[in-house]
């Protein structure tokens, strides 16, 4: 496995700027500042890097949507609102490699013509507020941020902005609303952030992991990155594994690696002699896979889609045969009900209703009609909302109820 992001994450005390520079840090930025911004965008396109927050949109293409010469400033926003259940990979990068992120942001800002950038970090990461501020201070002191980055004719300010505890603010337009000081309600698209984002100006929102991959791509070249992974899923991906595995944690995986190999080898396999029952491969918003469905599935965007799920954020939750699926779904549904921003009707009412029906079912007070009701609620919500949070509730509801129906019905007296 290639170590692009986690090459130095295991060793203690590696997150200072001195240590970072010792191992070659900020050399990629230096190289980038000698390139044309358009060349950097081309390089990122050629690398095949896709958004690592969950959507998997080609990063270079996203950057190329930003119009130049609008007369308005361009903004780069780092989405550090990591809130997808099961996902804790960005946290590791923020803790152990803050300068990797800062260098990646500086490269991206230079390519986009951006001079003011924000890191939007989820409020629950308050213990990381000071460390990130410190890393930024270090970067300013070393002349890597400020009016003249690395003494070149390029100015860049990066500020840290803390969120206040809302999953919805990981949605890019919601993030922008929150950053502007409003309630974190997603915006109607079009217009898209590329043309009308932060302060109605061209804006790019990128995930922490996406930005952290840039220094390696610039240093080693797009071809080297594209050589890793599969035809359409290039490079490496961080997977945060939790649940019934012997070695939960964050792993960096070449895209295209077999899912079951990853669970049994890297993650150590199922403990206590139990058997695998189900996997949620990419965060609670993706459909669950039964153990049988995992045969032959590779950890890349296409293979998981074909198997009926998604790569998503890479927040993998492994469930053994001791688990009662309705309980798991109830916990997941409670999450979406709690996090729905409430702006649009189907999500606001549907997530709440589904959560209540499931709680009833798990408490043994439900009926078989309630099981069908869950599917009906899912159908009513899907595809009709301003943002995909409702769809993110639909995926687990539909996949759990369809694939483990007998467990749900067993809870019902009538």
């Amino acid at each position: 496995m290639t170590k692009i992001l986690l090459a130095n994450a295991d060793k203690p005390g590696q997150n200072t700027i001195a240590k970072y520079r010792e191992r070659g840090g900020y050399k990629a930025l230096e190289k980038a500042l000698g390139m044309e911004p358009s060349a950097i965008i081309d390089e990122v396109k050629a690398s095949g890097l896709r958004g690592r927050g969950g959507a998997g949109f080609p990063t270079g293409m996203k950057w190329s949507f930003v119009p130049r010469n609008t007369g308005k400033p361009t903004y780069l926003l780092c989405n550090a609102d990591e809130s997808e259940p099961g996902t804790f990979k960005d946290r590791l990068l923020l803790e152990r490699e803050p300068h990797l992120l800062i260098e990646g942001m500086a490269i991206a800002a230079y390519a986009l013509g951006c001079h003011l950038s924000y890191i939007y970090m989820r409020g629950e990461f308050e213990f990381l507020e000071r460390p990130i501020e410190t890393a930024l201070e270090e970067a300013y002191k070393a002349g890597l941020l400020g009016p003249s980055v690395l003494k070149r004719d390029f100015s860049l300010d990066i500020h840290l902005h803390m969120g206040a505890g809302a999953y919805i603010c990981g949605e890019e337009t919601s993030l922008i609303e929150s950053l502007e000081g409003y309630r974190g309600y997603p915006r109607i698209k079009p217009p898209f952030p590329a043309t009308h984002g932060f302060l109605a100006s061209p804006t790019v929102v990128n995930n922490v992991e996406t930005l952290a991959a840039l220094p390696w791509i610039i240093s080693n070249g797009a071809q080297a990155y594209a050589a890793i992974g599969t035809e359409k899923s290039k490079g490496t991906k961080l997977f945060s594994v939790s649940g019934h595995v012997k070695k939960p944690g964050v792993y960096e995986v070449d895209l295209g690696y077999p899912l079951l190999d990853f669970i049994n080898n890297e993650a150590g396999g199922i403990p206590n002699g139990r058997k695998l029952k189900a996997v949620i491969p990419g965060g609670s918003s993706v459909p669950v896979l039964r153990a049988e469905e995992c045969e032959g599935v590779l950890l890349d965007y296409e293979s998981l889609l074909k198997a009926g799920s998604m790569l998503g954020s890479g927040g993998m939750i492994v469930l053994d045969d001791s688990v009662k699926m309705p309980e798991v779904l109830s916990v997941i549904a409670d999450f979406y009900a709690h996090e729905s921003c409430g702006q649009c009707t189907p999500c606001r009412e549907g997530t709440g209703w589904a959560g209540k029906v499931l709680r009833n079912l798990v408490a043994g007070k439900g009926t078989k009609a309630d099981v069908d009701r869950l599917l009906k609620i899912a159908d009513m919500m899907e595809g009709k909302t301003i943002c995909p949070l409702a769809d993110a509730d639909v995926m687990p509801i539909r996949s759990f109820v369809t694939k483990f129906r007998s467990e749900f019905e067993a809870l019902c007296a009538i």
Partner: protein
Amino acid sequence: MPKFTLNDQVIEAEDGQTIIQAAQDAGIDIPHYCYHPDLPIDGNCRMCLVEVEKMPKLTPSCTAIATEGMVVRSDSERVKEAVRGVLEFLLINHPVDCPVCDQAGECRLQDYYMVYGLHTSEIPLGMKVRKRKVIDLGPMVVLDQERCVLCSRCIRFFDYVTETGEMQFFGRGDHVAIGTFEDKPLDNPYSGNVVDICPVGALTSRDFRFKCRVWFLHSTDSVCAGCSTGCNVRVDHRDGTVFRLLPRRNTAVNESWLCDEGRLSFHELQTGERVVRPMIKGRDGIHAPVTWKDAVRSIDSRLKEVRDTNGSSSILGFGSPSATNESLFLLKRYLGGQLGASQFEFRADSEDKNVLEEEDQILRHFDKHPNSMGAIKLGLTSAELGGIEGAIKAARAGSIKAGVVIYLDPLVRRPGDDEAEGRILELIDSLEYSVLLAAHKAEWHASASVVLPVAAWLEEDGTYTNFQGRVQLAGKAIEAGGDALPAWEVFAMLLHASGAQSPWMSARDVFATMAESDTVYRGLTIEQTRLPGVVLR
């Protein structure tokens, strides 16, 4: 001007119009809650979803701009399912308040349920989300958070129209509740509008609360008589009592809004005693009631006496900026045409200066009369007299002996009203012979030689000319009571008594005559005075 099809019907849209706007203009209503033609678009209710060819997901028709060749369907099964779904979602946590909710009968949840819903509720009452009810938001508005469908119209109204930002959502998910910060009462002159735009009974009118079920009300189109803006209104009344005013949408005058004072101005109308009979002051100085026939004959012969003795310049016609154009026109025709009077005024305050002066940036003008512009355009200003002060002086000096005065109480009060009323009394006191046409009774009427009962606003059809010079038809909603008649009819009787032609049977007829005569109304038809009204050249 892109052409697109909606349910196989070709519609031509304006450039930049959304599908729902173009459809509304073409008379097709796509169901919606959060969309409002005079508020910024929000797209949150998801009720207006339509199928647009080539788009994989259903599209909200309030955000999608109509483009050339677009094929849209709002009548497919897929759309009907989606709309039914949104409606069901809105109803799951909605309290079953219909029996006690003012909105019943004009509630979009009820209306759309009958068309798109008709489903059985699948959520037990105990599972519904509970929120606060009967929250006092000040003199105009009562809030019930449970009934709210979170369409955000009220938020957008206060953010973008009044720019005062009093209302906002609090909380998240299905616990989001609408309200003001710490329940602070709404303290702005337009707060009543949020009751109109709230599609459900979350925001209701304190003034109208529990007074009448809406299906018992009759509606009449009229124009507010509170100031020179002339906002278009709908008067809801029953059995001779007005219950409320609602705005009628006129994009050229008031869009969808009314100010609170204007909205409540009908109360002023229904307060206090009315002048009920024509009255003539006898030799003993006391008013005695007479018939209209006797009153009219007496007035005409007395005014002719004054004219014959002192000349026609000794007769003054003092109109009211609250009287209709028809009344002022016939006032002039009688006094001017029959008696040769040439002195006409209407200014008891500074109405002519204030008619254009805005009191705020939204709707209100300082001039609290609906027809100052009408009085000006009909020539009721005298450069020589310069207003009531000049008239009083002339009367005191003896150059004006007699006067016919129309005085109608303003419906929106301001400091200074008493002074203006006092000046009218001064004028009457200074005249040897005075005929006062009034609606509401006052002590000082005792000074007038003759008092005639006339109809007030909403008691007669008539036109007003607003600050823009826009002539608008104000409809009659209720009867005047007693022997009161519209002022124009009084002058018609006087004209008849004096031997002139008097063929008019309605205010419409008078308007038609105005439109034939040498006035600013030449060439207009009464139909033109309906929405949106017609602006004088």
